[in-house]
């Protein structure tokens, strides 16, 4: 093969992604493009080919990156190769997003003609621009009566500062304007650069575990060529493996080919057994002829949110472990280690990239692995500086050292941008204040819309901030955040005592100013959840040994069926069986029988405010 051959392919290749705010039509547009380039007829196509997890489809979000190669014969008569890389669409997966973007040369910005620019639009566009991608906008949903394409165009030009005058006006749903988008890809997105003769340098932008082939590594070739039989090395992890298969992405399938050269996007397998050996962001090079420098920007995704996960039925502990191991095969950012709770038995402390990541994992465990789970209150990673000069990263409140040995504590702070129509600025500012937010700035996008900039403790937004935001803005506010760093904060550990015994699953770290309210609420809610016992049960909230709130579950006085004659016996037995079932689901804490759901409900309610 000649360099000309590689160059000819390279010049006809376009690597791009689609960025959008959630629900602005990213996946639908991808589907239409796949359909229009003839890969699949619409009848063959399951809606939204790229989002292939059931959960992703339900929630309309993308969790794993996906990619697909399309062949498009343009109006100039040339056949182009499009590699469309679908990026995860949520702030929890920002790092994955950034790696997917790094695999692209350009991006299509989809903006909803009825809603205009939203918080994630901005966040994603800025991210794309940071990666030097050429971005061109398309205005979607022009078929809707409330579409305002001209206003939206102006907004894009004013707010983002990119040319929007000739942005394709489309309806991905109705299939209107798709041809214009495909032509714009050819014209506005640059062909990739790269030297096929140079040593192999490829970016891992995602990976997938397959039980037969091992890890399937998704990569963008920057320089060189990767082919079957080649020994390769992952530069950050140092893992070495021999390439077994290379190929590109068909819709919903992997299509093997001989090689992938500079500028191309595809996959390879190399009998890699552990996804941790092929981490997103790492650089793949040829083992015997390595490139000089890895690609910049590799970092290990760190869990930001932790919680304890316990099987509702303790016998299911091994099942939970197996399920977590299986999920981890495909998700290097999922962390877990065994832990034991007096209240909940054996379980795992799990770390997640964010709350959505946590929710997704919980749902998958319950749905795909049929597990009934109890999760403790999600918490962030605190830095605890001890008087002896050492620092520990605290992921489980139960492990907090003796307060006397703590010099100070720090909590993670995020920079948040909240986009909101001006009428809701008041309520949203109030919400941020309640959540210990530090106001930075307000930027007006247009007369009726603004971006509020705040710094907020991560701890304050992992519960229900998003829901509160939606409810206080009638669904109009949108929100995005970035980890800013750690700051000293006056934090205390709150213990909940049932019958004078601390319930480890209910301990949490809270800002001193909010401790009293939170403690009182927890006690009140726990009182509703704990059935009456054979004696009075005090429920207390304590900070550092000081009781700050108390409720009492009064002794059970009467639980008896006055009548039980011949015809009542079967019914009576059913009642007792039900009662027995309830007792089986009880966990004994401090001599008190507490239904396992109580923990869950209290934690849920705690979030509910």
């Amino acid at each position: 093969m000649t360099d000309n051959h590689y160059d000819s392919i390279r010049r006809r290749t376009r690597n791009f992604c689609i960025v959008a705010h959630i629900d602005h039509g990213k996946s639908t547009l991808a589907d239409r493009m796949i359909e229009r380039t003839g890969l699949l007829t619409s009848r063959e196509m399951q809606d939204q080919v790229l989002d292939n997890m059931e959960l992703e489809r339900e929630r309309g979000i993308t969790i794993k990156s996906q990619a697909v190669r399309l062949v498009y014969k343009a109006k100039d008569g040339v056949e182009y190769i499009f590699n469309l890389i679908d990026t995860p669409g949520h702030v929890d997966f920002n790092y994955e997003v950034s790696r997917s973007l790094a695999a692209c040369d350009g991006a299509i910005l989809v903006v909803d003609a009825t809603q205009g620019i939203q918080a994630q639009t901005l966040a994603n566009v800025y991210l794309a621009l940071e990666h030097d991608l050429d971005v061109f906008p398309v205005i979607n949903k022009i078929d809707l009566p409330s579409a305002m394409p001209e206003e939206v165009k102006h907004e894009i030009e004013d707010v983002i500062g990119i040319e929007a005058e000739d942005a394709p006006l489309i309806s991905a749903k109705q299939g209107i304007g798709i041809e214009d988008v495909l032509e714009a890809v050819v014209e506005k997105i640059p062909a990739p650069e790269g030297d096929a003769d140079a040593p192999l340098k490829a970016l891992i932008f995602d990976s997938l575990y397959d039980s037969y082939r091992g890890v399937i590594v998704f990569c963008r070739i920057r320089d060189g060529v990767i082919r079957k039989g080649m020994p390769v090395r992952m530069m950050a992890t140092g893992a070495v493996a021999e390439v077994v298969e290379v190929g590109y992405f068909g819709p919903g399938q992997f299509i093997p080919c001989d090689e992938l050269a500079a500028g191309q996007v595809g996959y390879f397998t190399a009998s890699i057994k552990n996804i941790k050996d092929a981490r997103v962001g790492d650089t793949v090079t040829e083992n015997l002829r390595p490139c000089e420098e890895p690609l910049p920007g590799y970092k290990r995704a760190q869990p930001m949110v932790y919680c304890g996960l316990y099987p509702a039925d303790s016998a299911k502990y091994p099942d939970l472990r197996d399920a977590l191991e299986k999920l981890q095969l495909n998700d290097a950012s999922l962390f877990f280690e065994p832990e034991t709770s007096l209240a909940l038995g054996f379980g795992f402390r799990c770390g997640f990239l964010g709350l959505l990541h946590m929710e997704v994992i919980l749902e998958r465990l319950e749905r795909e692995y049929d597990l009934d789970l109890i999760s403790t209150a999600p918490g962030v990673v605190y830095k605890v500086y001890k008087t002896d000069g050492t620092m520990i990263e605290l992921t489980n409140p139960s492990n907090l050292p003796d307060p006397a040995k703590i010099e100070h504590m720090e909590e993670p702070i995020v920079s948040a941008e909240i986009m909101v129509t001006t009428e809701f600025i008041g309520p949203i500012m109030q919400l941020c204040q309640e959540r210990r937010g530090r106001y930075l700035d307000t930027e007006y996008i247009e007369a009726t819309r603004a971006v509020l900039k705040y710094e907020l403790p991560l701890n304050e937004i992992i519960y229900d901030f998003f829901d509160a935001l939606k409810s206080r803005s009638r669904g109009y506010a949108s929100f995005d955040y970035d980890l800013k760093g750690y700051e000293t904060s006056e934090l205390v550990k709150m213990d909940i005592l049932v019958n004078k015994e601390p319930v480890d699953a209910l301990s949490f770290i809270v800002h001193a100013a909010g401790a009293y309210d939170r403690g009182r609420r927890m006690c009140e809610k726990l009182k509703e959840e704990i059935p009456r016992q054979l004696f009075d049960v005090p429920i207390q909230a304590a900070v550092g040994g000081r009781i700050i709130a108390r409720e009492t579950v009064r002794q059970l006085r009467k639980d008896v069926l006055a009548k039980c004659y011949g015809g009542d016996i079967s019914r009576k037995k059913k009642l007792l069986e039900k009662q027995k079932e309830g007792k089986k689901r009880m966990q004994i804490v401090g001599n008190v029988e507490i239904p396992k759901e109580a923990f869950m409900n209290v934690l849920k309610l705690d979030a509910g405010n």
Partner: protein
Amino acid sequence: MKEIGPVRPVSLYLHFPFCVRKCRYCDFLSGPASEEERDNYIDLLCREIRLRSSEVPGQVDTVFLGGGTPSLMTAAQMRRLMECLSDAFAIFPGAEISMEVNPGTADGEKLRSFRESGINRISIGVQSFDDEELRLLGRIHTAGEAREIFRAARAAGFANINLDLMSALPGQKMDTWEHTLREAVSLGPEHLSAYSLIIEEGTPFARMQLPALPSEEEDREMYHFTRQFLAQNGYRRYEISNYAKEGYACRHNCGYWTGHDYLGLGLGASSFLNGERFKNPDAMDQYRESVLRGDIAGLQQEKELLSPEEQMEECMFLGLRMTDGICIEDYQSRFGEPVEKRFGEVIEKHLRQGLLCSGTVEAGGITQHRLALTEYGLDVANYVMADYIL
């Protein structure tokens, strides 16, 4: 091969599903019907009795005629029924033969006739001696009529009479309940049943705007007062809601709590025979069809053979209803294993928690070890009994 041994006696329950008018708290299988319907039903019941007598090989030691309102039956109907019954079954000469009587449906003459037909125990549904409370309950009689019927029953020769009473009624206070108890005791019945009202789903009480129900504390206060007051007057509590003078505990009902066999006859009646539970259809059409066709299988609905474990469970939770509790020697001889085998841990726990007590009773020179609920154990009997479900 079927084991041949002494044939155990059996109890009979006969259901009469008609009343003058449904009481507001009642969830029994019962309702008003025409004179003709009631008469047809007696025919049907007699047919069923003849049909099913073969299911009872041994003697019948108790009969209970419940409802509805069996005292709605005419003297002639009762005669027909009782004649049919003694033709079909070997009724033990000393058998306890009870029926329920609503004060609004009988008089001295009728009661005399019932007595002559063979009824030897009556249970009068008094419920309250407060006319206001009776109205609220939807009863068809007054307190005065209840007193009259009691005297009439005595005059008719009934030497074993029960009064049914209800506590924890909406708006009821300790003083009205005490009044009811005093009135009841002053009549001198042999037996008293006093139930805390349970508001059942689907009854008018469940839908009605009612005066406030007594709190749990008040309910228990009334319950504990009842026990003390009746004890002072010679009535011993022998089951959660039943009190009797020495020797007058209701043998039929005790059978339910001690695993005695019983055959239920009539609409919707439940049976427990040879370790099997089953019941007659609740729907009149279906019941009639099955009886007329002679279809015994059709009369054994929801049939369920109890496993030894299930019988053990029942033995415990039914036995513990009685204040004398369970005789652990009887348990061992019935099941061929000590009670500790399945329940040792639970019994231990309940003893420690003060829900159970153990003791010995000397009976006929034999020492019996018994396990019974404590006073608090009785208050929270469901909570305790649930632990005996295996």
